[in-house]
């Protein structure tokens, strides 16, 4: 029977909860493999080596560099994402739909294409500011997408009430609107932060060393040496600091709307005389994010002519990339669901610990994850060495954060009452979740999977090390040709990576667009 007490029950024993917790714990354990590996190397190499490798000038420089990069790029991204989302969702900016597409589109451009494009357009542009610029251009969509979606769904009643009570519009924005964007800002910000820590391709040509570039240098010289892994250890510590910050800022307020009626779209502010300057700025911005890569790729394609379209090779790479991205994305999204559900429905200390284990891998460069899996496979499960399952596991570990962030946001908007009603009507616990929350969260889950697939389609290091012999993805071919300086031959692969990513970006954008205000 449907009774008030059972509807309001917040915790208590539940079989579905226990199952999901067990599943999340299993994923967390798998995620801890790279950390265990790093710790094992640290123990194995002895305290003296640890001191010699960690407490040195280079590591201090890298810490400063990473802190500067995070400290500059992240706030800029946050501010820009809010500003752009506000322009599109809450002003009478002309061509709002088009702008919104253009702001999301850079997601389809692989990071190393940004990097090559900038080094070819502005060869003298180096160092911290170059790194900050390319980071902002490449990663802004991670923040823009959730912030814009959240802004659109906000119930304007709160803002109107504040206005009616005498607050100036700017005060309303900071005291009412911005706080309601917290979940989107925290989730997107965390994703950008993790990527900044783990990214290698973006910084190859900017002459700016981060932990990730130093780890890759070490790996290329000494492979599985203590230096690379110990740098990875320091990176994990930095990442935990970031996670603690995010958890502290995120809080666990309720964001779903229930009750009769529905939220209606908010009122649009008039830009008036500001419209033209704003349009100019936006055109300039899109020129930087999309124009520069397009220019460079176009030039390479023209230089290459028809000879570079080796369809046999290109077709094979395309097919393999699609398969890996598809299965990797499914696996990762499925693996992330239990933790996403727990983090919204049953937050607890244990849950936060498990969640941190899901996230931290995202801050590690692919090399460390791949090295751990190579070592484990070679030593203990030889038949799985250089096999698809191991590769998919690596993808799952690397891209769990991407899946989690999207899932969290969409589960948070599905009212928990529906699950309880379904359970009380006699559905088994997991099915109750499946038929209510998961169904409501399905578009969000699809978007998460798309975000993961985007990552996998452009992933290189892990694929190089773990893929079965004979595998050639688009990213592998692109890397191979660029390292031979044959940019013209590399260009079709970059173009295909963009083309392959576009439908995923469209999916992401439509999901954010089409979700009704709840």
């Amino acid at each position, binding site marked *: 029977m449907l009774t008030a007490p059972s509807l309001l029950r917040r915790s208590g024993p539940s079989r579905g909860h226990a199952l999901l917790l067990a599943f999340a714990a299993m994923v967390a354990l798998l995620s801890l493999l790279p950390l265990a590996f790093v710790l094992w190397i640290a123990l194995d190499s002895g305290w003296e080596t640890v001191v010699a*490798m960690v407490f*040195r*000038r*280079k590591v201090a*420089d890298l810490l400063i560099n990473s802190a500067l990069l995070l400290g500059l790029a992240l706030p800029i991204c946050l501010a820009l994402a809010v500003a752009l989302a506000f322009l599109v969702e809450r002003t009478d900016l002309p061509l709002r739909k088009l702008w919104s597409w253009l702001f999301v589109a850079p997601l389809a451009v692989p990071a190393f294409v940004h990097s090559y494009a900038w*080094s*070819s357009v502005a*060869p*003298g542009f180096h160092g911290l500011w170059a790194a900050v610029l390319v980071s902002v251009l490449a990663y802004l969509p991670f923040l823009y997408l959730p912030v814009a979606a959240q802004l659109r769904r906000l119930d304007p009643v709160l803002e109107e009430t504040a206005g009616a009570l005498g607050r100036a519009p700017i005060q309303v924005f900071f005291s009412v609107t911005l706080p309601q964007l917290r979940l989107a800002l925290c989730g997107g910000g965390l994703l950008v932060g993790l990527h900044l820590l783990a990214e290698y391709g973006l910084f*190859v*040509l900017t*002459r700016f060393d981060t932990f990730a*570039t*130093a780890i890759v*240098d*070490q*790996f*290329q*010289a*000494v*492979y*599985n*040496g203590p*230096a690379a892994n110990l740098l990875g250890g320091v990176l994990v510590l930095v990442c935990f600091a970031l996670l603690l910050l995010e958890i502290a800022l995120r809080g666990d307020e309720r964001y779903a709307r229930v009750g009769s009626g529905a939220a209606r779209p908010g009122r649009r502010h008039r830009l008036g005389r500001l419209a033209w300057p704003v349009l100019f700025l936006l055109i300039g911005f899109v020129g930087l994010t999309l124009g520069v890569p397009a220019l460079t790729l176009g030039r390479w394609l023209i*230089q290459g002519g028809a000879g570079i379209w080796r369809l046999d090779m290109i077709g094979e790479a395309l097919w*393999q990339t699609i*398969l890996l991205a598809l*299965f990797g994305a*499914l*696996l990762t999204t*499925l693996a992330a669901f239990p933790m996403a559900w727990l983090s919204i429905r049953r937050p607890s200390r244990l849950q936060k610990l498990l969640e941190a284990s899901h996230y931290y891998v995202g801050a590690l460069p692919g090399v460390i994850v791949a090295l751990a899996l*190579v*070592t484990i496979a*070679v030593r203990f499960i*030889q038949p799985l*060495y*250089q096999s*698809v*399952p191991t590769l*998919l596991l690596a993808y799952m570990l690397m891209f769990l954060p991407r899946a989690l962030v999207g899932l969290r946001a969409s589960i948070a908007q599905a009212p928990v009452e529906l699950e309880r009603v379904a359970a009380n009507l006699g559905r088994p616990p*997991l*099915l109750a979740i*499946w038929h209510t929350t998961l169904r409501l969260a399905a578009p969000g889950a699809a978007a998460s999977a798309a975000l993961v697939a985007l990552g996998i389609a452009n992933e290189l290091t892990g694929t*190089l*090390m773990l893929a*079965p*012999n*004979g*595998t050639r993805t688009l990213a*592998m071919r692109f890397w*191979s*040709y660029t*390292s*031979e*300086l*044959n*940019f*013209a*031959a590399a260009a079709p692969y970059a173009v295909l990576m963009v083309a392959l990513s576009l439908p995923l970006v469209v999916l992401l954008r439509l999901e954010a667009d089409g979700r009704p205000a709840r």
Partner: protein
Amino acid sequence: MSPLHFLLTLGLSVAVATMAHAPAWAQDERLVIYNAQHETLAQEWASAFTEQTGIPVILRQGADLEVANQIVQEGANSPADLFLTENSPAMVLVDNAGLFEPLPADVLEAVPPQYRPGNGHWIGIAARSTVFAYNASRLTKNDLPKTMAELAEPQWQGRWAASPSGADFQALVAAYLALEGEEATAQWLEGLKRNAVIVRGNRAALAAANNGEVDGALIYHYYWFGDRAGTDENSNKTELHYFGHEDPGAFVSLSGAGLLASSQHKQSALEFLRFITGAKGQAALREGQSFEYTVGLDQPANPALVPLAELDAPQIDPAQLDNRKVIELMIAADLL
């Protein structure tokens, strides 16, 4: 669909996908080559070899030292039959782990003795020369460095570019170490850290010299020739300076190939080594776009290149190129 159903479907789909791929992974009769040489060159070799012998070849791509270390980690279980590199230190690393099968005399004799290690555990397949690519509008012939050591001196501060994180450059440092000893190398690396504009990749170093950011770049010759033959955008304002005089800066780095002792296809693998060091294999170097030197007996290089014999390179047994010590010194100099 219930969650269980969904999981099952996913599992099945993965299994199906795995089987669909199976032909690419059945490694029974295929020669598996771990390749750190340029993929285009290796693929050309592999295709021509398969055409001539009917033996199928699979290439696994990577960079010199990471693949070498991966082979060492795989040990006796390595799926690889052959290992091809761009530079010698990666070969030495695998050889020091005792994983190479000594090569028979008839295979070794395809290249002259100076292009293979004294112990005969692997063989040279191509070569590249160190050069100083300089911006011709910023330096005249008289201003050029006479020796590689000179680049570590104060007058060169901020004036040249290098990519010390790459295996190419580390091979050069290994040569410096073999010729000049540990102390001199440590000092030279200090000088490098002080003087050089540090970039990632030889192309970026060449580009820095070409756009006038620095006067010159310490790189291998083929980056310059490749760029000239291609888009020209990173080399049109630069010329090449060869150090000569058996200076460490005239070091010629040997690309190698070795047969893994754990290989199950030794006969085919030896066949492949004979093929790439023989007339057809070396012709690919001469006629292709790699601009690397040939090393086979009586196999002239690409006519665009300055012949190897005229470079006056220092004599070093490639088996002496010790990457471990190089890395140790580079970490001590905070370069890695």
